[in-house]
């Protein structure tokens, strides 16, 4: 009987983590989910936060910060398709506008809108990072 589950954390730019785990906690969009081996197949989006992986054959808990992405669970395999960028409708829109702006070569853009979206996501990222750090601290003490 399988007591471990394989986990792959990959982003578009690199492979972040790959190994066997006994327990995984992921920040899913509807709330944190805990995954044990032989979990039923599931697919969900994840939001910025910490991924906690209890690595097999050791008491070590691996903390990985992700800026969102997609979580795929199969009975023996968990795949985290991590985003390297913080995503959001507003931000994606802002980036699209920026690309358009370069294309049109207009000199001035509506900077305030872009900055607002950027600040919002920076904040989300900072909060998630802080949470990850505080969790890590708790473990150390």
């Amino acid at each position, binding site marked *: 009987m399988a007591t471990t589950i394989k986990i792959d954390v990959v*982003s*578009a730019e690199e492979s972040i983590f790959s190994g066997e785990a006994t327990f995984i906690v992921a920040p899913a969009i509807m709330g944190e989910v805990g995954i044990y081996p032989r979990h039923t197949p599931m*697919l969900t989006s994840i939001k910025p936060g910490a991924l906690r992986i209890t690595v097999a054959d050791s008491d070590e808990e691996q903390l990985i910060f992700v800026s969102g992405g997609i979580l795929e669970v199969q009975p023996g395999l968990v*795949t985290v*398709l991590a985003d*390297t960028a913080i995503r959001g409708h507003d931000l*994606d829109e802002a*980036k699209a506008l920026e690309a358009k702006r*370069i*294309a049109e070569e207009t000199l001035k853009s509506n900077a305030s809108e872009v900055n607002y979206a950027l600040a919002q996501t920076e904040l989300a990222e900072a909060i998630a990072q802080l949470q990850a750090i505080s969790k890590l601290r708790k473990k150390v003490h």
Partner: protein
Amino acid sequence: MAGSKEIRTKIKSVENTRKITKAMEMVAASKMRKAQDRMRAARPYAEKIRNVAAHMSHAEPEYKHPFLIKRSDVKNVGVIVITSDKGLCGGLNTNVLRISVNQMQEWSKSNLGVKVCTIGNKGSSFMSRVNADVKSSLVGLGDAPHIDKLIGPVKIMLDAYVAGEIDQLYIAYNRFINTMKQEPILEQLLPLSGEKLGAPQGQWDYIYEPDAQPIIDDLMVRYIESLIYQAVAENMASEQSARMVAMKAASDNAKTVINDLKLVYNKARQAAITKEISEIVGGAAAVSG
């Protein structure tokens, strides 16, 4: 010694050029290795996301994502042209721009509207020069491509596809084969063909949280982005190796030019000395005689 000073200056200037091309060759060689690593690092993600997308496209028959639907009537096409930001890399950009422009002309002949998205400085300036309908562009990518930067320009094309402004989307870039060989290609991105996704393994469905549709939407966009990222990474590896090869050729050519010039210079010097000696000998003979 007529001309010997000019030749010396010329040799000096060619030597300086050679120093620069040699330095660029070495820089490109070290960047090339990193660019190739990045290209390889991007593969697992693309594979994983393709597996999931393949499964979902079969598991969820009620909802078909627009990216998967083939349109019978094609009126407009979009093309993403990936080039480098900097020049001095041989025929790399010219090749990819040539196949894009040839294809664009063919589309225009068959009365299709063409919309362009450019990634990289060279393509951007070229496309605006030929008055193409540039919808979005991205310049200043740097040495390491970031998906972060690609989201914006790509989104415009994907939105245009979903809104029906374009019915097909292509991508043009240099495929990296090996250090000596890069191949410009033009591929179709959208609509995604079924065989490209492959068939799923087994018959089962996921639990979707919160709902299948938004996850499929997210996944499809990411899949396309990862394909484009892969193309950009390949183009960058191609760029560095093309630059390395081009700079090596330039250094070798400079070396040949220097050798030729040195030969001419030495001949001129020799001739001057011979002339001087014969003048002295002639003078002495006249005095003593």
